[in-house]
């Protein structure tokens, strides 16, 4: 309650200076987390975070807030587990309650092939220390009584991957929490500042051009999610990405009664209920690529049809709002992070549908990379050069369901 009595000014406006040590493009959860850890852990404070819109306008404000680490590859599972661990103490670290609600995550299997995939994820998870196991209908019923585990649905539930630490968090609060602490340490957040060019001389970054003037700097980090290919085009760094839209929707708030996150790859849906009582739901990325951000009716029709098969109680719930966001999909469904062929240009891209849940560890490791000059072990597998070395991290089995 004490916090309520104090007057806060979380975010300040600044004039744009002519030089910074580090320029971060994109004031979303990734960019602000990076700024925070750079200032906090490495004492680099002359940082400008630029965004062409408001803080968290892109994927940070459009995702469906699910945090989990039950990935298929050991590299992925270790990386996301480190992220979950940071999330678990983030409210305290940033002194901002992010309403992190860890009630568990169930990925349903409706075919014996997908039971195998669940088993593989569970085993990889167990061996690398992620809490995750395969459960069968009796236990599923105990964990989530609302699910129809009978054989009436078109696709009966055969098993599920149960991941107890999985949860949801207030996504905007993550952006604001990192932003306000970064601001406090002197990081400058410049909203409505559009990067129009990145200057490179002799293979090294020298600055960025913006609609508010030119900035000199020797390190630029691109944390712009769906716009990564456009920003990378400014420096000529090629990215093997396709951009797709991903849709989501939310219901009117009703009394909370579903505390698990439910995911079904076969039905292409997932759902959770927020602490406010809204059901938050989504589906697969759209198969076509492009920058159209139009919501489709087909999305909510199909989603509703599948959802009431799984959770018949939702019949009376009402969908209030649907929206879209951009997702960059890489060939192996893993992100692309770290150094590029342009010295001083660091990328953080290819986040498909799994970027938000990585925000803390992205900030942490990218900051370490800049602070120490060495690529941290955790993100070595996701390096940009892997596409030249054909050393991919095949995460399709765990990431193809878009949440």
């Amino acid at each position, binding site marked *: 309650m004490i916090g309520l009595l104090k007057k806060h000014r979380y975010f300040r406006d600044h004039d744009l200076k002519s030089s910074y040590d580090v320029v971060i493009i994109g004031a979303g959860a990734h960019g602000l987390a990076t700024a925070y850890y750079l200032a906090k852990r490495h004492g680099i404070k002359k940082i400008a975070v630029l965004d062409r819109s408001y803080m968290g306008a892109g994927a940070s404000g459009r995702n469906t807030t699910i945090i989990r680490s039950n990935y298929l590859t050991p590299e992925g599972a270790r990386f996301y587990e480190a992220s979950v661990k940071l999330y678990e103490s983030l*409210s305290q670290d940033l002194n901002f309650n992010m309403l992190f609600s860890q009630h568990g995550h169930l990925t349903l299997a409706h075919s*014996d092939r997908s039971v195998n995939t669940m*088993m*593989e994820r569970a085993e990889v998870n167990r061996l690398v220390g992620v809490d995750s196991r395969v459960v069968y209908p009796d236990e599923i019923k105990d964990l989530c009584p609302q699910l129809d585990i009978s054989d009436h649905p078109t696709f009966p539930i055969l098993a599920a991957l149960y991941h107890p630490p999985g949860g949801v968090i207030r996504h905007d609060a993550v952006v604001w929490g990192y932003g306000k602490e970064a601001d406090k340490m002197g990081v400058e957040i410049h909203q409505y500042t559009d990067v129009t060019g990145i200057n490179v001389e002799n293979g090294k970054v020298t600055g960025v051009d913006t609609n508010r003037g030119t900035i000199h700097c020797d390190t630029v980090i691109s944390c712009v999610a769906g716009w990564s290919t456009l920003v990378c085009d400014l420096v000529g760094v090629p990215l093997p990405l396709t951009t797709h839209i991903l849709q989501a929707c939310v219901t009117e708030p009703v009394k909370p009664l579903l505390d698990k996150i439910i995911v079904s790859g076969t039905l292409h849906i997932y759902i959770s209920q927020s602490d*406010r009582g809204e059901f938050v739901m989504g589906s697969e990325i759209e198969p076509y690529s492009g920058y159209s951000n139009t919501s489709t009716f087909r999305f909510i029709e199909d989603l509703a049809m599948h959802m009431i098969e799984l959770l018949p109680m939702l019949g009376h719930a009402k969908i209030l709002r649907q929206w879209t966001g951009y997702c960059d999909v890489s060939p192996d469904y893993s992100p692309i992070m770290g150094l590029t062929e342009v010295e001083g240009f660091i990328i953080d891209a290819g986040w498909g549908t799994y970027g938000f849940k990585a925000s803390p560890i992205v900030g942490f490791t990218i900051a370490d990379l800049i602070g120490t000059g060495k690529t941290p072990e955790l993100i070595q597998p996701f390096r940009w050069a892997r596409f030249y070395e054909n050393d991919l991290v095949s995460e399709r089995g765990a990431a193809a369901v878009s949440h």
Partner: protein
Amino acid sequence: MAERRLAQRQGELIDRSQEVSFQWEGREVTGYAGDTIASALYAAGTRVFSRSFKYHRPRGLMCCSGQCPNCLVEVDGQPTVRACMTPVEQGMDVKHLNAWPSLQRDFLHLVGRLTPSFGMQVGFYYKTFIHPRRAWPLYEKILRNAAGLGKLDPEHRRTERFDKVHRHVDVLVIGGGEAGLEAAAEAAEQGRHVALVEEGLALGGQLAWGGPRSNGRLTALIERVNAAGVEILQPAYAGGVYEGLLVPVFQGRTMHRFRPAELVIATGSIEQPLVFGNNDLPGVMLASGARRLVNQFRLMPWEQAVVLTSSDEGLAAALDLADGGVNVLAVADSRRGADGSAIEDAGIEYLAGFQPWQAKGSKAVTGVVVTRDGEHRTLACDLLVMSGGSVGQTALVSQGGGGIRYDRDQRRYVPDSLPDGMRVVGAAAGSAAAAGAVPAQAPKTGCKQVVCFCEDVTTKDIALSLDEGFSSLELSKRYTTVTMGPCQGRMCHRNSGLVIADQLGLDPDSQRVGVTTSRPPHNPTSFSLLAARGYEPVKRTSTHHWHAEHGGKMLWAGDWKRPYDYGDGDSEVDAVHESLGLIDVSTLGKLIVRGPDAAAFLERLYPNRFGDMKLARVRYGIVCGDDGSIIDDGTVARLSEQEYYVTTTSSGAGGMEQWFTWWNAVWKMDCEIVNVTSTIAAFNLAGPNARTALSTLTDFDLSNEAFPYLGAGHAQIAGVPCLVLRIGFVGELGYELHLPAAAGEHLWEKLMEAGEPHAVKPFGLEPQRVLRLEKMHIIVGQDTNAESNPLEAGMPWIVKLDKESDWIGRYAIEWYKRRGNRLTLVGWEAQNGGVPIEGTQVVGADGQPAGRITSSRFSRRLGKAIGIAWLPVEQSEEGTAIRISDPKGSTIPATVTHKAFYDPDGERLRS
């Protein structure tokens, strides 16, 4: 009841001769046919309809037109029903939503009043409940208990029938007000097929609720519309405007998916509330809402009313209400120079330049304080009518791709650009009377000045958010949740924009304020309605029913249903090994590639060589992606010089057809691709007695000499023309028969008959998996993943790097060859101990995953567990001991092997 109604008058919607009774909070209420739940309850004396979302403040009727959240109730178990838009029905059960223990006495309202005013200020939950961390689950429980509006019944099952109709009309008009009716009539009179959607209970919009003066005009207009043959859907609402002018319209339990050639948006305007202290008290109503109650339902529940306005709309409303029988005491007009003579002529006090300050009362309005230049005047009243001007309802325009801009002169949002095929008419287009000046910054009165009625956001909340640095409409919206409630900003979008612009000292159309995006659906819509009647297509083979009738456990396999087994998988495996089995493999993808370039085409698609294939032969092949990974496998039979018959995996059929046709389009080769997957059935007759049994049904020479392993030939079998492929996925002598699906059931039964002397058994998917695993035949997608290349998958022999033509994946595979294998696909066997589970891991010395178990079964024939695994090359030598993980934490020892477990030299296949 009757005494609360005014005298009968033209234009009323109620039928006083017909009473309707229903339950409200457990007691019976009687209204008239034609009443809404809201009007009937109002007539019965109900003033508090709901409690607000956060502070649980009592709320009464405000808009009476389905825009605001104040009358949300539960009806027959359905939460969040708008009482003002729902006609009463005999026996319906209506309850309040968000209050405990009752609407009148709400515990949480009390809590809110007792805690200091900062207790539930905006964003309080971000700043509290942080320490200690371990207490958060408890705090969260409290928060969750307080959250949510309605309740869902966990046992609810959809039992009614819901439907979906696809509609194509020349013109679809959304909105049945004056402008919509006129547009519809005009179009229909030109001979076009016109449908009109109206969400209200009466056509005519303001002509209907605006008093008796316009009744004549309305009657004439409706006659014109009917005469022109306009189809009217009412009450029904448009759920949004999607790409290509797709407009889902919901009427009762039916979804009409309209695709009109022309879409006319005639959604009118929405009257806006004024912002002042306690502006949410029951008894504070929008002028249009009060006029609806008086004119359409003839309610007269008030002693005296005061009208607060900032536009001429309020003046008209005051006169209309007075005419309807309401005792209007005064009109406070925040404008100074407006003409109030008509008001004074009607004997009503006109207070020019007076702004609303605060409403008096605790659960109902008892008076109002208005102010001008520091002068306060208190007026006693029990109805406060407010009119903050109207904004055009442009949400559907922007959802459909139109642009919206803020008009500074009119102080409201107007359509700017329209997508092809869309037209906006009437008030939605901005032709309604200009909204007058709204007091952007309401006086600081010390009581709540509600901006967002859904989410209980006040001017103080918005000010706090801006002070804290959430200094734009978008950030403030996300922090305070203003505009994010069930009304989707209908009641608060303009006012919040004005409040924020004013506080930041910016123009309402500046970058930091601007217009927030209107998101579909247009009205909250239930899952039941959206799901309509669901269709989940399933593919069935020609012998589906035979399998089901003979004990086949039909399970999903991709888009198909296939028999898992027929009750005894073990004996099905034995039958194939020892005598004879029959499996339906019709789900295999089947493509015919035909034309002069057919051979060259396949040479480019496959790493294999097909150009040199002899006629009447079949060959196993894999398909690789550009990155050299295996994307599918199957067999290719050469039927003639220019014709190949290609099978793909069951799940890969669609993808392979696309892959083939895509490349054919790119390369422009002279061949054609026909997908015959569904028209051709396929059965595999396998086992040592396959030849003997099949011979009884055909004259075709099946002898090993005439038709050896990997032969392909045309034969008449039981009178059915078949393509016979001598291949052996299951490891025994076998004939895969491809035939017209129409004859599938016939041939299947003939084969079963012919096999009877050999105790033939049908076998399912699971026995087939055991059989193929004994032969170490891989299943693409199970034993391979998106990164598996043929070199590492143990099939270097299939890759013809010396082919003269280029082929897809060649570049990558050459690269892999230079790099050398890192992983390799091998077999393993575990003699003693358990059967590993598919998906478990080969554990390295450090206890971490080193390899993956992709297949595992216990083979009764071999008396051991066998399987396939991906291993690092250095651990993959024949005979290497490996440890396989188990979910329980132990490990299972196993030995690497490279040869097939069963009949490694293929003698039985070739026999």
